[in-house]
């Protein structure tokens, strides 16, 4: 439902973040901020956590960069991803599309999972990646989130999940829907086991991810200005036939309505997580 709006947003963001290895051409060294339109030198942007130094706009982050920012250098042990896409609707182009995307993005799927340390504190961490089919959740994402949570229970470790997703993956139909029930049941087991679960909502978090594990953290953080909701803004606008209020479905909007514990700037995220881990020990 939300894909349209999100695509528009990502087009101008994609000029930047993921392609820097490809070219020596000066053109590729600059990015335009989607918010303040300032032209930014990409190196500066990356040094600034991919946050616009001019206006504070948080650019979308790849899972790789996210992990670099959050996990202590050299401590990330990535889990072997279960990449068995079942293609339940038998769509001809779907498997091909996945292959092309894997090639293009260097990602296996829309999530990376593993164990890492945050200032020495060991956690299970899952990071969704909007560069891979808008971070949508099909069987592979659901399975690996669930595996990671089960692993955390076994190892008695806290769980940290960074969400970035347009919602359930349409191409896998009802099986994607069922991932909501599956991941959430694992969260329930985690709760019962007494492990800490911190969920971080980043731009965008929508649909079946919002309506499952993302909104069930003991603590829910969000990045500034991230768009977060259940139904996409376009669908809501169509349904009610009126314009949406300013700031609707932003992280700040959720904070105001009591669904987010704290909005945290990216540069403070690691420290905040560390403090929360200590305070929950």
């Amino acid at each position, binding site marked *: *439902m939300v*894909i*349209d709006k999100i695509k528009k947003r990502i087009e101008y963001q994609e000029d930047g973040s993921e392609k820097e290895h490809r070219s020596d051409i000066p053109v590729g060294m600059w990015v335009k901020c989607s918010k303040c339109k300032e032209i930014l030198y990409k190196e500066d942007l990356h040094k600034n956590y991919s946050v616009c130094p001019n206006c504070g706009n948080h650019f979308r982050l790849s899972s790789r960069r996210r992990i670099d920012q959050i996990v202590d250098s050299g401590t990330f042990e990535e889990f072997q991803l279960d990449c068995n896409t079942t293609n*339940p*609707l038998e*769509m001809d182009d779907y498997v091909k599309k996945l292959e092309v995307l894997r090639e293009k993005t260097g990602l296996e799927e829309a999530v990376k999972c593993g164990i890492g340390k945050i200032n020495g504190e060991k956690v299970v961490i899952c990071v969704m990646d909007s560069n891979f089919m808008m971070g949508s959740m099909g*069987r592979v994402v659901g399975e690996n989130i*669930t595996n990671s949570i089960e692993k955390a229970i076994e190892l008695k470790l806290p769980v940290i999940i960074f969400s970035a997703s347009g919602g*359930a993956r*349409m*191409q896998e*139909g*009802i*099986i*994607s*829907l*069922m*991932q*909501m*029930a*599956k991941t*959430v*049941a*694992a*969260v*329930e*087991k985690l*709760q*019962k086991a007494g492990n800490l679960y911190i969920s971080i909502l980043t731009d965008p978090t929508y*649909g*079946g991810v*919002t*309506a*499952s*594990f*993302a*909104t*069930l953290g003991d603590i829910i953080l969000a990045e500034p200005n991230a768009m977060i*909701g*259940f*139904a*996409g803004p376009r*669908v*809501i606008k169509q*349904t*009610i036939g009126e314009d*949406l*209020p300013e700031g*609707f*479905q932003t992280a700040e909007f959720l904070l105001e*309505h*009591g*669904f987010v514990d704290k909005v945290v700037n990216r540069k403070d995220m690691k420290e905040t997580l560390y403090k929360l881990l200590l305070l929950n020990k």
Partner: protein
Amino acid sequence: MAKVTAWERVKIAREPERPTALDYIEKIFDEFIELHGDRYFKDDKSIVCGLGNIAKQNYTIVAEQKGRNTKENIERNFGMPNPEAYRKALRFMKQAEKFHRPIITFIDTKGAYPGIGAEERGQGEAIARNLMEMSDLKVPIIAIVIGEGSSGGALAIGVGDRVLMLENAVYSILSPEGYASILWKDSTRAEEAAEKMKLTAKDLLDLGVIDEVIKEPNGNAKTDVEKMAETLKKKIVAITEELQAIKVDDLVEQRYQKFRKM
């Protein structure tokens, strides 16, 4: 069974004369008392909750309810729940657990309501919490898709030990219109989407998403609501006995594994 296409089933599931949850509830249960409200915000009439019994067995009933005419439809928001409807459902399901009553849910919705208020009051959180709590409720849960089962709005009361579907009911990630609009940017290709989405009871049985397809009288429940209700009643009684024979911890673990495999 004559060959009925997926799109035809979508149309049957949406017929205005299609029996609604209350039509069945009144006939299945000897006694039914509706109880209202989520205790936080309001009573959302798109989900009906209450207590009922079949002979000596008491039940908690949670049902998505479409209107049977325009006036009712406005009152019931066309069967599209707001968060408070899911919170009401959860309140009664937790109560069922307290009093060891099995839960019967009837699923029939175009989806959770996409509105400003719904977002302000945490539609996503309400659905998520229901899924989480249902996964661990220590009573048998039987979920029955009687009409349209669209998206998280349907699943939010659908985490059952047994998931049944009427022959012409449909269950999917999204409406065929929504699906076509997202995948092909063209909502008029809904019929084509319906054929691709595997949303019929038979398809979902094959995929292992549901446990059983329930035949409709004369190929359409509207032709004989009495008989349809009678069939459902027998199913409910039989499955309740079957689930009650399972130790509660095993029941909950089996429910976990059921969804874990998907």
